[in-house]
């Protein structure tokens, strides 16, 4: 009896090892070696699974679309772009591992990623040290590009987003008293919370309750009960969609009726899927909305729908697409795949027409762009207003 049992145990262990070590997602996409010369390798690290998976997937889909379009049009410098993608599983610790792998083993010329600021902050020092330019599609925490002169982003920073959200709440919602509920595990949430608070106080508002949670928590009722007791006119939740949806659900259960307002971390179909009617009428700011935009963004929406089975692109997809446009433009102007030259070209990006607007990289290596405010209506995201920087 003992022996077959043991061998069964071993086979279970063996199966588990195979499952654990099954190759990640090192899938090259976007064409082979079409036009002359070796393809240019571009690395991407993205949260394709885990807590922020819908962000990572949207961003990845935008990135793939841009790479395919550029390759179809003949590539860059007469060479095709080859995208190597690694999954960070939305986990701390993974970005360092996969980015080291992309740089050291695969020899990529530049890195794209990530959506979450905490994970971009983890990879940025590695790129800076190896002198490989990194372009983050949608990490908004100001600290990300402060890591060094090789780190860029194609979205606005939370300094601007914080002002936009605070102004919207004080002016459009006419709120005087607000509560703020921060995810202390996320650099994005902590940074955005600080900027919202500063601006809201400058606008003459008062913060009546400041509470914290840990991203990934399931029970928010304790903090929400305290927020309800403070009776705010609005509640800021500068967090990610999974937590935000649960917070709205539990707030509704507790009879907390003040509007909830978030940032670009909210924009995911999971928000309405988990939040259902509890997220109805809540507000958040983001980078872009498919209803408003230039000719280029209309074309992008059309092509994206064609490529990804009718899925409407969200802001993360648009930012992912733009990150490739900015990088490809820089490689073209640099005329080489040398890290230093690409870096200089990236820093000199000016008035590049992209999906989320005209991109100019400023002296802090951030993009100055407009933000849009959306409201959840009937499970869809309705465009309310655009705020220019």
């Amino acid at each position, binding site marked *: 009896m003992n022996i077959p049992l043991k061998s069964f145990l071993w086979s279970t262990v063996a199966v588990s090892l195979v499952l*654990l070590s099954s190759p990640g997602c090192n899938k090259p996409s976007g064409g082979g070696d079409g036009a002359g010369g070796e393809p240019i390798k571009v690395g991407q690290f993205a949260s394709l699974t885990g807590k922020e998976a819908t962000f990572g997937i949207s961003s990845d889909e935008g990135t793939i679309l841009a790479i395919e379009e550029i390759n179809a049009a003949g590539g860059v410098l007469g060479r095709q772009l080859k995208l190597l993608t690694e999954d960070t599983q939305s986990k701390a610790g993974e970005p360092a591992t996969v980015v080291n792998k992309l740089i050291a083993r695969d020899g990529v010329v530049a890195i794209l990623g990530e959506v979450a600021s905490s994970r971009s902050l983890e990879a940025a020092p590695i790129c800076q040290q190896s002198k490989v330019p990194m372009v983050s599609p949608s990490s908004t925490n100001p600290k990300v590009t402060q890591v060094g002169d090789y780190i860029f982003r194609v979205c606005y920073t939370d300094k601007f987003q914080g002002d936009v959200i605070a102004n919207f709440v004080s002016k459009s919602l006419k709120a005087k008293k607000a509560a703020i509920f921060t995810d202390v595990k996320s650099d994005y949430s902590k940074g955005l919370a600080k900027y919202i608070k500063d601006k809201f106080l400058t606008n003459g508002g008062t913060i009546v309750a400041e509470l914290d949670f840990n991203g*990934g928590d399931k029970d928010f009722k304790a903090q929400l009960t305290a927020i309800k007791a403070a009776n705010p006119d609005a509640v800021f939740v500068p967090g990610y969609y999974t937590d935000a949806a649960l917070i709205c659900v539990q707030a509704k259960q507790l009879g907390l009726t003040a509007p909830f307002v978030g940032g670009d971390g909210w924009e995911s179909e999971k928000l309405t899927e988990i939040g259902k009617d509890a997220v109805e009428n809540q507000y958040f700011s983001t980078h872009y909305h498919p209803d408003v935009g230039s000719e280029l963004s209309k074309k992008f929406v059309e092509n994206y729908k064609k490529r990804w089975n009718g899925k409407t692109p969200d802001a993360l997809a648009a930012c992912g697409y733009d990150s490739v446009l900015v990088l490809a433009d820089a490689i073209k102007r640099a005329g080489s795949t040398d890290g230093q030259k690409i870096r200089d070209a990236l820093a000199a990006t000016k008035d590049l027409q992209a999906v989320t607007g005209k991109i100019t990289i400023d002296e802090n290596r951030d993009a100055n762009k407009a933000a849009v405010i959306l409201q959840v209506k009937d499970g869809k995201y309705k465009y309310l207003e655009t705020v220019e920087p």
Partner: protein
Amino acid sequence: MTEFLQQLINGLALGAIYALIALGYTMVYGVLRFINFAHGDVFMLGAFAGYFLSPLVNRVLPAQSYAGGIIVLVLAMAICAALGMLIEILAYRPLRNRPKLTVLITAIGVSLFIEYTCQHRAVFGAAPRNFPDLIPANNWHLGGVVLSSNQVIVFVTTLLLLAALRFIVQRTKVGTAMRAVAFNEQAAALMGVNINSIISFTFGLGSALAAAGGILFAMNYASIDPLMGVQTGLKAFVAAVFGGIGNLPGAALGGVIMGVVETFAGGIPGLSNYRDGIAFAILIGVLIFRPAGLLGKVQTEKV
């Protein structure tokens, strides 16, 4: 005052779930003298069992009905009881006569195995899922205090399960055998108690309670993911130690106290970030003065 009552209700609902899970830890410790670290993952599997069973049950019974909810709960408990027994037979039984440390480390291995297998995209995937409403959801407003039907269900189910557990352990033959094995395994074997089947039964019973906890947790907080058992399982384990490991009423009491303390800490601005830390700090405090836990008895070991 309203806030105090509301937090008390929130805390009791959370604590009741901790209590259900803590019972599993404490029962296994009682009979085998080791901590089954995979217990928190059985709790997670219970929630996922409910998630997948609910649409199947809804084919026969209308969605959001009490009968449907109860059937989902009972089926999930049965599935997890079987899983718990399977884990014991595959992972722990072959190590029965090895040092306890070996079994303990195996338990951690089993826990990681379940977590990472379930996170694989061919199994559940790592993304959180929305848990369906099993029963019609209502909120009652009593003054400023809101009591949700889910919270009432949590209290009622927990009390019923605790009563059932007490009956099984104290009044039935198998319960007597469980207590005998916990008291002295060899003597129990000499009295004709089938040790293997009693240990299997203990794992089954504990896992069924964890499954019930998983479903109640998912109903109350609306979202489930493969790692939901890690933190909750840890808290329940602490609750079991807090109440006196090996002691059933102690585990239930420890769970309720943990839930309430954590909730009150979470509601204080500036401290809300430390809600887990505060719960653990209180545990340390209690263990300094009562090393065997609140209701545990200090056992002198004969050398």
